[in-house]
């Protein structure tokens, strides 16, 4: 849990500011020693620049409101664009304002920058961030910084603005076509009850405006005297079960990234994807389902996975009914193939992916591959 952010303004000299102050003090000392009155006046002006910088930075930061526009979920090691709406409630303009997230561990940020915000006006600045770890990341607040006007004093204001973002495991690419045939082409089951697909014949209906003329059933149209078109049934999507056996000794992060990549591919191809994995809280089971919501649930579960003695592969598979597995394509991702093989049920369409097979089938994200264990 990140520390709570207090809304306050801090001012500190920048590195050039320290050098500047030291040089100016030396000049003032020299002016005092020599009785150079005008030089002493210049010394006052130069010191005044520091004071003006501090006052100006404090006044600017005091009256700025910031609203953040952040996606709820995103991938690990992908640039996440964050929108900041800066509103200046003060009477004076705000110039040279940086805005960035107060980044917790494992998050790298690039600040947004607003050159000018007139009094009472607003500005949309864009920042970026990259998460180097997966899971639910709490962002405690936003940091506003300015070095305007002279770059001597840096004013920093930390605005409490708690937000959460779920970082999915980094997405790589599949070298081997584990899902070689798309769901639209592999309708092995009965046709679905929904029309509008490209599968088997569903029925006839009247021609409507904007229908493709190629769909017109000319023979029936000629006999009935009105245009009718053919309708084909929508293919029932295939089911993919991803079973994760991430025991403590296994290369867990790579497995998670592989599972997330596989799930993402499957959802993109119209699969109904289910997930079964054993973690610290026991076995987590997500029934197969289609759509963006289920995709988010599956990837969220993978993102928030915590390894632990929650049960082995056998216990996980026991929870899955055999019939379900027999109707689906099952990918078991396991760190140790020898122990996993003994627990596997004898069902068709089951693929075991161990560490070696994963290396052959999965191209990890280059940024993630170069990193160590998840922070």
């Amino acid at each position, binding site marked *: 849990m990140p520390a709570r952010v207090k809304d306050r303004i801090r001012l500190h000299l920048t590195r*050039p500011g320290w050098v500047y102050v030291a040089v100016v003090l030396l*000049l003032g000392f*020299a*002016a*005092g*020693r*020599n*009785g*150079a*009155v*005008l*030089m*002493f*006046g*210049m010394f*006052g*002006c*130069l*010191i*005044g*620049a520091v*004071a*003006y910088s501090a*006052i*100006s930075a404090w006044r600017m930061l005091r009256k700025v409101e910031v*609203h953040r*526009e952040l996606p709820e979920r995103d991938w690990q*090691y*992908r*640039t996440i664009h964050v*929108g900041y*709406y800066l*509103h200046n409630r003060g009477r004076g*303009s705000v*110039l*040279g304002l*940086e805005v960035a997230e107060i980044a917790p561990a494992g998050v*790298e940020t*690039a*600040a*947004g*920058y*607003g*050159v*000018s915000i*007139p009094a009472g006006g*607003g*500005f*949309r*600045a*864009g920042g*970026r961030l*990259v998460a*180097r770890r997966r899971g639910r990341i709490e962002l405690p607040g936003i940091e506003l910084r300015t*070095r*305007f*006007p*002279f*770059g001597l004093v840096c004013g920093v204001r930390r605005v409490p603005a708690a937000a959460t973002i779920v970082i999915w495991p980094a997405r790589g690419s599949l070298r081997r076509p584990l899902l070689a045939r798309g769901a639209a082409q592999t309708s092995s089951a009965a046709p679905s009850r929904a029309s509008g697909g490209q599968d088997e014949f569903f029925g006839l209906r009247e021609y409507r405006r904007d229908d493709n003329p190629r769909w017109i059933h000319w023979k029936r149209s000629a006999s009935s005297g009105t245009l009718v078109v053919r309708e084909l049934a929508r293919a029932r999507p295939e089911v993919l079960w991803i079973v994760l056996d991430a025991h403590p000794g296994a290369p867990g992060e790579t497995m998670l990234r592989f599972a997330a990549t596989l799930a993402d591919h499957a959802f993109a191809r119209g699969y109904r994807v289910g997930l079964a994995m054993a973690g610290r809280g026991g076995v987590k089971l997500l029934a197969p389902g289609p759509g963006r919501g289920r995709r988010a649930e599956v990837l969220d579960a993978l993102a928030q996975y915590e390894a632990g003695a929650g049960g082995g592969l056998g216990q996980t598979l026991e929870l899955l009914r055999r019939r379900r597995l027999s109707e689906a394509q099952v990918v078991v991702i396991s760190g140790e193939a020898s122990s996993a093989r003994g627990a596997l049920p004898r069902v068709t369409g089951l693929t075991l992916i161990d560490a070696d097979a994963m290396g052959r089938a999965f191209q990890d994200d280059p*940024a993630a591959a170069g990193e160590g264990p998840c922070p």
Partner: protein
Amino acid sequence: MPVEAYTPAQVVTQARGRLERPLLGMVSLGIAAFCLATGSLVHFVCAALAVGVNLAVMRRQKEVYLHRSIVTAAVIVATIQLIAETVLSNAGEATLLSLQRYLVVIQLCKLFQQKGNRDYVHLMTTSVLLVVSVTLECRQAWLLPLLVAYLALGAYSAMAFTIKRGLDAVLARRLVTEPAPPPPQRVAWNAIHRWPRGLLLKRTAAAALVLGAFGATALVLAPRAGGGGGLGAVPHAISGPGETVSLDSPERLKLSNEVLLRVRPGAGSPVPAYLRGRVFDVYERSRWHAGPRETGPEGFTSQPAPGLPAPRGPRSVEVWMAAGLAPRAYAPATTIALGVARGQALGKSGGEWGLPPESIQANAPHVHYCAWFLPEPVGAYDLGRLVRPLRREEIAARLGRMSSPWAYLRQNASDREKQAMAPALTPAQVRAIGTDEPLGPLRAFQGTPGRLSKPQADAVAAVLADPQYSVAATPLVAQLARQWCQDLLRTPAQPGEAWGDPLAVAQRLRERLTERCRYSTDLTDADPARDGVEDFLFAMKRGHCEYFASALTVMCRSLSIRARLATGFAVPLEEARGGDILVRGRHAHAWTEVYTNDGRWVVVDATPGAGDAAEASWWSQWADRWQGWRFDWQEGLWGLDPAAQARLREWIYDRWSDVRAAASEALSAVGDGLVELTARGQVTRAVLWLGVAAAVLAAAVAALIVARALWRRTATARRVHRRLGRPLRDLRFMTRLLALLRRRRLVRRPGETPRDLLRRASAALGWPAPALTGLVDLYYRLRWGPPGDPPGLPAQLAAAERLVDQLARGPRSQ
């Protein structure tokens, strides 16, 4: 919509001119200050060429630069030269000059280098150091406006550079997952839409004010007691009253506008019409000389102008004098005491005093003194009575080095002066003055002021009988004087006695002089071989003040009327400025002082219309102001010594105490009044004033609010008109529509475009989408479309207004 703003944003991030233009101005001003201070024409020409080339190239959106190795080599050569000059030269000023030249060369090199942010920092730093070093040695008045402009330009440049550096940092920021920084235009779109020139100018003005306030405070508080250490420049020779008055060399007259004196009459003292610096008694062969004894026992008496009532008691005048002026005390009358606040003033006889050159070098170019004089025509025996309170109350506190006026007299009076006072003093008293005895014996002399005692009159007669005081008036001049005053003259009873009432005779002569001669500074036809006064009266018949005063004095003396020539300044009352008077070189003047029968020296100014010159042009008025400001600058720069700083602190503290006491008193009065009001129901004066003040304040605040609202409304309309090129009323339909939506609780979200908002409104309120799309299209066309009115705009606007009216009446029925 944002397509028009996209390109400027991209341009802004790459434009160099926005930073380099003010930076070049800053560099130019810094080098110009150096060149003006040192008179280096070569550096000025080089800098002008370099800056000009850079500006010309910048106009073409290009950059001129040499190969880095060439620039580096030039810098190395300059550094070696600096080191060599530093080693070989022992003088501090020469080293400073070498350092300044080095800084100039570095800046010139940087101007021809391919510049990055670090080079900009180097340019600004070297420029600031150069200007600071110039302020170390130069104290001319022109430096102040130049410094103000430099600070403003420097502040603007620094602000522009800070913004540019921030943008550069954002552009260069690369996250771990990014192979390269994002494209500039993408960052620019999220960082800047247009260059905030107006905002930066406002900030520059505010920064200049703050920096100026800090600089002024530092100037006031700057330690000045440490001495100039040889840095103070001896002011150049300045014009003013000469040491001698000579009518045979008329070309020496110089009328300058330079301010020489600032005069502040003391408390209770009237503004003097004349400041006398020196008096001349002996005239021979067109030249005036000071007599061996300028001030007799009655020499302490003088009167500013005839006809004025003679004030009693000692008077004072405070003078700030340019040290280059002839070193003497300028006062309305003969000085009896002199308080010098600064400088090494050395008193001399006859009210003169001097300033050694070494004291001028080590101190300020101005000398500040307070001259004390007695306006009453009193004899020496009255001094004791008048001086005693003076010494006790004021002189001891203000004069510093002088313990009393008598000490001054004791130190500076010549033996002849002491002897001249002998008829009024006993030998013991004379001895007392001549020794270290206090002035106790003088207290016994209590006489009636304004009348000469018999011994004094005898002494005066003896002085006048001295052949050294004779005035060589030519027979023609003496005859003319007798002819002019024939009806006023009587035969003197004894030699040396006046031929008539001195003042009446002098006035008659003055009138005739002004009728006969006119004022002119053109004396080209003067005859040096002839007596100056005779030549003036009979040949030229024109001249300046010295001719008129000489003629009058000589004519008076030819009639045995005691008169003398005085030089100094005619105080220009029109130059009075808040109690102070600025006296310039052109105010140098000469006049006549006539000794009247009642023992006064009365000023008779015979010069006609000396001040009736042609009306001053605007340029001369500005030149006068500049000279006055220059004098104040020098005085302010030098004059705030520790004592003056202490006085300033005391003054501020006193004013603050006054304000605090007044506030406390007012609050207590109001409190008492409120108590009276609540206890007895009586409205006191304080409560009444409080009510009036509250009402006035409330009215003022209300007026301010109304005025501000009106101003904002018009300012907004003007701004929108300027930005859009069309009046704000054309967009009123959208303003009304947005207000209508706000009433329906549909508020525009951050970052939401008007099109998005109206789409949301259409879905939420069931308003017709095509109509709203038409409104948005019209709005976008007006705001971001090509300039000029689209065809049929009035009809479209009327239709839009009607549509908004319909939506307001029954939006759900649409």
